[in-house]
């Protein structure tokens, strides 16, 4: 069994074969290897290319940007996704702009990796799912690891196949998930779709032999795994057949507000959409999904809904946190209401 964490670590080790790859982050030296251990082993194998840094997130992002400008392929580890707020200016006003604002001759191939998410009781400043801040930033690709395909390979491709910046979203609970094997997925028929000019595949999961879907679920990252569990239970316990669409690329989406083809295909069958995310509700990823769906199916969707955390800080207390963050039961309840 390979966990998502192991896969990411392997992906980094594979990437480090190329001497242009450098890693910058806080507490990334061995034996610690980063707060969530994703970077373990790198500083031992490549001491001169692993930069353990002061607690200076903005500076870190900027230094990596400079390295990227000069031909390296830096990877930045932000210890908690909550601190991505500190690199907002570097990301928005420098890193993602340089590719266009200088007339097209400048490239900033860097990857910022960071874990988002709660369910560990870390409280309001260490549990957030903040990628929504970056999904509408022009010039920035945002990818979210999932356990349906190798996130280490996705990370490796982000490092090498992209001449622009990539914000790579991980999730604390996803780390511990096993990469799903064909055996794990034997109940599913899986369709892969890669959007134009992307390298990250969208997975559409339907249960083998299921009748036409009554509902399309869409989710990414760790929520995709919860949605998959809900999908199974909806089928087996409630005879509600859903399709689940799991994108790995959250941004950019197609220009002109066009809906992702995999989602469009599923919706044209189900006519019902539920977008599920762990981040807070308003202007989350689901807002863009629903907006595009509304544009793509004028008058045609029977119902559309979002499941997300409420618009409030994430409490530290376990029962409060559990109530705040959407889980399998919430998906079941919402889906049942929708069909």
């Amino acid at each position: 069994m390979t966990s998502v964490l192991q896969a990411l670590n392997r992906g980094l080790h594979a990437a480090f074969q190329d001497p242009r790859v450098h890693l910058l982050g806080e507490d990334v030296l061995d034996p610690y290897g980063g707060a969530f251990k994703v970077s373990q082993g790198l500083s031992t194998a490549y001491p001169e290319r692993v930069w353990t840094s002061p607690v200076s997130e903005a500076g870190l992002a900027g230094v990596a940007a400079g390295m990227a400008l000069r031909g390296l392929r830096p990877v930045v580890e932000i210890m908690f996704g909550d601190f991505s707020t500190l690199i907002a200016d570097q990301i928005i006003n420098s890193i993602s702009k340089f590719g266009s604002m200088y007339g097209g001759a400048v490239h900033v191939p860097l990857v910022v990796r960071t874990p988002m998410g709660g369910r560990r009781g870390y409280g309001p400043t260490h549990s957030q799912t903040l990628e929504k801040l970056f999904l509408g930033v022009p010039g920035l690709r945002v990818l979210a690891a999932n356990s349906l395909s190798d996130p280490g390979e996705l990370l490796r491709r982000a490092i090498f196949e992209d001449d622009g910046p990539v914000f790579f979203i991980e999730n604390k609970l996803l780390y511990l998930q096993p990469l799903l094997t064909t055996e794990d997925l034997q109940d599913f028929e899986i369709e892969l779709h890669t959007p134009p000019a992307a390298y990250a595949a969208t997975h559409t999961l339907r249960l083998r032999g299921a009748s036409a879907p009554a509902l399309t679920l869409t989710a990414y990252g760790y929520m995709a795994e919860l949605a998959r569990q809900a999908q199974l239970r909806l089928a087996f316990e409630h005879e509600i057949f859903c399709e689940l669409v799991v994108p790995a690329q959250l941004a950019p989406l197609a220009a002109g507000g066009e809906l992702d083809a995999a989602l469009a295909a599923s919706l044209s069958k189900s006519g019902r959409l539920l977008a599920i995310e762990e981040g807070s509700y308003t202007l989350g990823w689901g807002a863009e999904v629903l907006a595009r769906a509304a544009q793509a199916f004028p008058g045609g969707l029977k119902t559309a809904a979002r499941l997300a955390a409420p618009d409030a800080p994430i409490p530290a207390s376990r029962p409060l946190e559990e109530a705040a963050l959407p889980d399998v039961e919430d998906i079941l309840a919402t889906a049942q209401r929708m069909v």
Partner: protein
Amino acid sequence: MPPMPDQAGLYRQMYRIRRFEETVLDAFPKGLFYGTTHTYIGQEANAAGVLAHLGAQDIVFSNHRCHGHFIAYGGDLRALFAELMGKATGVCGGLGGSQHLHWRNFYSNGVLGSTAPIAVGTALAEKAKGSPAVALLFLGDGALGEGTVYESLNMASLWGAPVLFVVENNHIAQTTPIELALAGDIAARFNAFGIPCQRLDSSDVLEIHTAAEAEFAALRAAPGPRALVLDTQRFGPHSKGDDTRDEAAMASIRQQRDPLALLAPKLAEAQRAALEAEVQAEVAAAFAQAEADPFPVALP
């Protein structure tokens, strides 16, 4: 001459912190707490020595390693245990957890450096209102990596904010030794922004008490920012079990730099034993109460 510090009182305060933190570290693996924690063991003399000078109107900003500050500030042990357990009776009703405390004029937050300008702002507000209150900001050596800290030093200095920056330099940030994270000199950094800085390498609470006394006196006499750098040692892991330092070296440090062991000889043996017994009972009772306390009711 200022009165002699209350040695028994300081010992009690430090021992309360010690027992609290030991209880936390002990109970964490049993699943009684939830989330994370950063214990203050080894640094008790800083909180006790500095906060002894605080007036009721003064303001404290603390960081992730806030239990010791909170306790020395006068915070309730049961409420702190309860907060760490996520109980409704916690300092913040379970919303904040270990790193996010507020009670009276005490505030902590888990984002390093983010409290610096906020502390300066509170100091300026009190000054603008004509209040004699001063603000105090605890920072670790690691937090000195954050740019916001320097913006804050500059503004505090320009605007004469009555704020004391207390750097607890335990020579490590999570797992990163200070040599890998801090170039130049800490005191020089404050001085470069026109802020006087006193530096003290000690785990002796009496020395720290004296040093802090001078800072508070100066701060109240001529409002304007000041800095106190306390070289210290973190005895335990960064949070739970994540200590990458050499165990032998740490053992010798624990031997030499224990604030409790340093003060203990100054107290009569019987007095100390009685005091410790009292504190043990106090902490145990607080823990038991917190354990029995209800969880907050989650709205559906």
